[in-house]
């Protein structure tokens, strides 16, 4: 089982906070990898909110190929962070040439494009770089999106953070998601490492997804190029989130109705029964069967947690106005926000979605039995 920790803070904080939480939850993961997402960035990136940032791992050859490709596309480097890797190798962490965090200036001929077109093109470029990298095994790309940094690597989270120097002052963010990985697959593929990101939507998940194959088949057949990969059965949660919010124009409160719809009797009692029964039927292949605890973030920097129908995975949300943490275990929260009012900690149950909106003032619990904010 993996361990998850996410935080949302009014002021930018270091990713080391999240790493610290993973470290205290060490009993729950085997340290076989870590994935980190930073959004709503502080520091130097504060000034370039529109510049797409490419995050990934590159070999010397790969970076040269990338540079050629990006120049071809008309992208110029605006800012970069170089993660200096110590010369001494640490057992369990593979030797890489370069961890890339680089912000780009958009090409001039993109100036007149609308946001939707820019988003689409950025995604297509990420997919292209991924494809090029898979072909020659010289590039791994995690995200290419404004105000977003992703780092993923194999190894113990704390050791890795120290190894990569994640405590550096340029690296801080208001939204941080981190996952300590339990390796249940023998071969570790970094594309199988949470969190998963698609066009501003990002999720990480605890637990296996038993309904993975039908969900993957359904998403793959939506004729949307970004719905691909699926080296991990958890990648679908991010894509379902994107599909329900962008494809179907639903609110976050409907996400849980897509992945874990109410059972028939409860559904008929719901104020939006008709809408929900149509949603349940038409999105039937997207029903997850758990056991999963999903933590995710949206383009507006809301942070949320949902549990599967059976609520078979741990998850707790707590904090104080201006700073909230989402954690697999309470000890993770204790490590990062010891001064919170613990009586207000919330462990979302099988029909709850816990949301901290961008104002970061409170944890809202959205129950599946309540009315929906519908686009109707």
């Amino acid at each position: 089982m993996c361990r998850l920790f996410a935080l949302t803070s009014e002021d930018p904080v270091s990713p080391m906070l999240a790493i610290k939480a993973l470290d205290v939850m060490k009993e729950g993961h085997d340290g076989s990898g870590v994935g980190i997402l930073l959004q709503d960035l502080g520091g130097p990136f504060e000034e370039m909110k529109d510049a797409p940032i490419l995050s990934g791992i590159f070999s010397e050859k790969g970076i040269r190929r990338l540079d050629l490709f990006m120049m071809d596309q008309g992208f110029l480097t605006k800012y970069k962070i170089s993660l200096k890797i110590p010369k001494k190798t640490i057992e369990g962490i593979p030797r890489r040439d370069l961890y890339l965090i680089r912000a780009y200036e958009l090409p001039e001929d993109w100036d007149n494009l609308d946001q939707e077109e820019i988003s689409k093109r950025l995604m297509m470029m990420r997919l292209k770089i991924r494809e090029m990298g898979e072909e020659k095994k010289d590039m791994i790309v995690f995200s290419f999106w404004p105000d977003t940094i992703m780092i993923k690597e194999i190894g113990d989270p704390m050791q890795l953070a120290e190894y990569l120097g994640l405590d550096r002052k340029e690296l801080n963010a208001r939204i941080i998601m981190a996952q300590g990985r339990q390796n249940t697959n023998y071969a570790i593929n970094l594309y199988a490492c949470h969190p998963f990101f698609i066009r501003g939507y990002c999720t990480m998940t605890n637990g296996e997804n038993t309904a993975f194959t039908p969900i993957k088949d359904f998403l793959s057949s939506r004729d949307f190029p970004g719905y691909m990969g699926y080296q991990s059965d958890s990648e679908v949660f991010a894509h379902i989130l994107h599909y329900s919010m962008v494809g179907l124009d639903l609110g976050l409160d409907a996400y849980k109705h897509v992945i874990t719809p109410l059972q028939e009797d409860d559904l008929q009692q719901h104020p939006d029964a008709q809408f929900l029964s149509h949603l349940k039927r038409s999105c039937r292949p997207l029903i997850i069967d758990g056991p999963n605890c999903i933590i995710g973030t949206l383009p507006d920097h809301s942070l949320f947690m949902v549990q599967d129908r059976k609520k078979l995975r741990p998850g707790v949300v707590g904090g104080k106005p201006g700073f909230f943490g989402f954690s697999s275990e309470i000890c993770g929260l204790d490590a990062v926000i010891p001064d919170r009012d613990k009586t207000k900690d919330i462990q979302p149950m099988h029909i709850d979605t816990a949301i901290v909106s961008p104002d970061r003032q409170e944890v809202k619990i959205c129950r599946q039995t309540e009315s929906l904010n519908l686009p109707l």
Partner: protein
Amino acid sequence: MSSNRKLEPSSLSLNDLPWQIRYSNERCTLCGQCTAVCPVKAIELSVFRKRRIKTSVNKNKDHSNQYDTFYGIQQKTQVENACIGCAMCTMACPNDAITPVKNPGLDRLKFHINQKGIPRRRGGRRNSSFSVLDRIKFTRISMLTDPALDAGRHEFEMRTLLGRVLPPEENMKRLKEKGWIPPVREIYPLMIGGMSFGALSPTMWEGLQMGVAYLNEELGMPVRISTGEGGCPPRLLRSRFLKYVILQIASGYFGWDEIIHAIPHMKEDPCAIEIKYGQGAKPGDGGLLMWHKVNKLIAAIRGVPQGISLPSPPTHQTQYSIEESVAKMILSMSMAWGFRVPVYPKISASSTSLAVLNNLTRNDFASGLAIDGEDGGTGAAYTVSMDHMGHPIASCIRDNYLNLTKIGKQNEIPIFAGGGIGKNGNLAANAAALIMLGASGIQIGKYAMQAAAGCVGTEEDRCNVCNVGICPKGITSQDPRLYRRLDPEDVAQRIVDLFLAFDTELKKIVAPLGRSTSLPIGMSDALGIDDYAAAERLSIKYVV
């Protein structure tokens, strides 16, 4: 016969028959029950003469010849009286003196069941007990990576959808604009497939209907039953129970005059309309109700004269192409119920099934596709059709599902699988395997007859006389002396037993796979098979 008598080509000995009667003269009380009950008059009371020769080594003593007479049961060897192995004699015998035994050698009867140039016709199924479905195992067991569920105590929602499901974007759009959204029924994934009133006896049909009504009304299981092509009794058409019934129309249109006239009087819409184009047991051949079974009641319900054979044409005669057959007929049927009732075709599994499916994907009114595999049963068909025509269900379902997946319509047109599911008694395992291969639901026929009414038919060519109305259990007979053997209440009880047991077994399969909140349609990663070629063909894991 005498050794010097002429032999006819079809003169058979007991050794040539597929079933041989073992009889114990010592135990027999000559009560006559067995000869009375035998549906084919394969046995008769006979007088046997036995000669006893008494000789002595003493040449002066008289040698004598003594003739004894005794009575016993004798098996006939005429083709028309060949024992069918139903073992009703065994059931009737108070002293366990008689039983049919399968000829361990090769019988020669099959070379002769074409007297007067008429090939053999029978009821039943393909005579092969092999089942690829029985070889499929469920290999993705949740244990420590994620907890297995408790089949007995966890909450499950094992339901499926019958009807055209719109793609999510389109569905939400039509909901918003108050457009027409095709009717969809949420039903139990195990259905009773089409067996007509006529093919089945009145007691059997009534029992099935009562069982289904009980499951729905008392146990909350939305089980559905197809009428088969033979119409529907007028009282049922006008009752609230019609909502549990799928009305079948086939190429003979039997009973549809009555149905159409009953539409204004219907209190409830039927669950769905099934248009039968083909049947797995006899693909490319029409339905057949032989004259033996067309009595006054059947004739009235079907709207035909009494005592004539009713062969439905192999195709719907008013239509000549797939576009006509499928599109127009689905539209007409939808229109008849104001577009409130799902309408779907039933076809026999075939290498052309994909073409039908592709056609349906472009027809907004098509609500699903039922595919009947080669192991499907029938009340009457030519043996050659049953044994040699058709396509296995597993690969056909898989091909069709994968095709839908390729075009992104796997949730839009539910595929229902039928034909030989549970043929060796493994109903839940076979059904779950097909669901994970891509079926949305399962139709059973023979299994219901075997489990709920004690049908004795097997893949060893046992009994199989459904066609001529002499069913010894009264299941497929229209002869009151026979069908009174079957109490509809008992059939209903057994139908309930069958579905409850199936439900538990299905949960016992899906719970360890970590599934409970939705039917695992297309969850092929859970499946494995110990045959490499089959694994490749079905795109599932090869496990040894």
